[in-house]
């Protein structure tokens, strides 16, 4: 048997678009050797609250309960701090639901990343400018402090920043 042929392959695609002034649509699609699925959430602005959720899920051997029953629990959840615990609690953490839960989380992360992108496009090109820009970003949103290697103590980006002040 050839050892060059893949045993498993996966594509996961996430896209976020602005539907109108008050709504973002985030869609996560998964196609892998065993699964074909998509989850769509609508996020209301400016609250970043889930206002709609839908999806479809097909798996070679796992049976997934009626998606509408699960996803209709999501409207009202706010996309932001603390959302992962809430999503897991509402969608479920059983084996056959984990992929679905993960895709909902990905949709929500996509909304956050799309808004992060709006900020990052303003970053200067020069090294010095970038240091100043990202340092200010941490000062403005102190939760970023020590959240990753780039914002950890010892990094040039957090020089002089005291998270307790």
């Amino acid at each position, binding site marked *: *048997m050839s050892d060059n042929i893949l045993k498993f392959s996966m594509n996961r*695609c996430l*896209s976020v678009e602005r539907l109108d002034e008050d709504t973002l649509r985030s869609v996560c699609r998964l196609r892998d050797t065993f699964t074909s699925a998509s989850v769509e959430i609508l996020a209301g602005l*400016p609250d970043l609250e889930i206002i709609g959720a839908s999806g479809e899920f097909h798996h070679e051997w796992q049976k997934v309960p009626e998606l509408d029953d699960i996803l209709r629990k999501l409207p009202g959840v706010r996309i*932001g701090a603390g959302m992962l615990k809430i999503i897991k609690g509402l969608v479920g953490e059983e084996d056959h639901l984990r992929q679905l839960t993960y895709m909902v989380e990905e949709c929500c992360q996509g909304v956050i990343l799309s*808004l992060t992108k*709006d900020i990052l496009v303003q970053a200067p090109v020069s090294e010095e400018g970038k240091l100043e820009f990202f340092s200010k970003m941490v000062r403005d949103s102190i*939760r970023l402090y020590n959240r990753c290697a780039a914002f950890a103590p010892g990094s040039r980006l957090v020089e002089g920043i005291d998270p307790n002040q």
Partner: protein
Amino acid sequence: MLKFARNKVVSAARKDRDTLSIHGILDDDIYGLEVDLCVGIKDLQILSIAGKWNRHTTPECPSAIPYLQEVRGFHIDEEIGSKLNKIVGRKGCRHFANILNECCYAAAEAAKVVRWEDAKAARPDLSFEGFLKEEAAGGAQVGDSWPPSDQAGNASPSPPPPHVEVPREERHGSNPFPARPEPSSNGFVIDLHVHTFPASPCSSASADSLIEEARRIGLNGICLTDHNHVWTPEKVEELRQRHGFPIFRGNEITTDQGDMLVFGLERDVRGIIKLQDLRREVLAAGGFLIVAHPFRGFLTFSGEQLGLTPEKAARRPLFQFVDAVEVLNGKVTAKENGFASSVAASLGLPATGGSDAHEVSEVGTYATRFFGEIRTEAELMRALKSKEYVPVAFRRETGVPARENRPAEVQAS
């Protein structure tokens, strides 16, 4: 027009008899990165890992790469998501953790295929589904559960300890404190939001150490509000007696609308409850419900970027279901506290303060000042419902310095 797109591609091949080779690519509008892993087929152990950035944001992002090596030796099991997020996500970069999670999923699935192919060598008619059923009948295999239980890196919550039902007459009210702290001229100040270990696994402070510190800094009482955990009256009474200090019981319950501080509800709420359902239960129990840190993280985008004003925020449905708003919380920014304060004022809802302490040095950062002595839970309930209290920045107001955490106390149970 697309605002943002992220594509992830992961492939798994058999490198040799015992090893899988996994390649993962994450490419989105902001980041571009790749990882290569070798994973043992039999035990799903990560044998080697390499990663590289193709595009990143800050000049310091490359410093995340060395942390990838810390996952060597990990087994791909139910805990792998938490481990990746804590090690790679928090210390390195969460986008590397994200693609590694996907690679682990791919490795676990590929290993099933490989095991089936190996089994088919002896039994050519064995179907994949039939093979999986046989495996399941033989016991769960390593790596069968994916995605891991936590994308963000928080450990799965431990089941709360069993709840002991207590006759209602014993729940509130009959336990004067052995040594009564007198209300000062500045009122009776209680930290209404405190987390203890092990009741709240995210806390590093024992109830004893928190109580000692609360007494030291001059608080008049604290309220134990552990996450989805019901303290028994007996246990709290034992703490009261031992410390001679007012200790009250509450509960921080996670709802679909966020975290709520609940007083007077004895039920052990598990999982996520709808706020409306919680409200119904609290009303039936004669309890009190405070929305905790209502705008935690809200202003990162929703404020200046998206134009959320206190007037708009006050229209959020959740405020119909709460009795008060926590407007001073020790875990959110001053701006978010200020925003909560504006919203509470515009709605005419009472405002409270609480430290949300998870460490000894945090207790009393914020608290709530009542205007009379509170000795029992029944008195606390009456006081909360009276609406006669104000949130206070207690440590700043009193100028009490933070105490160094003593290592022996951390993680004490």
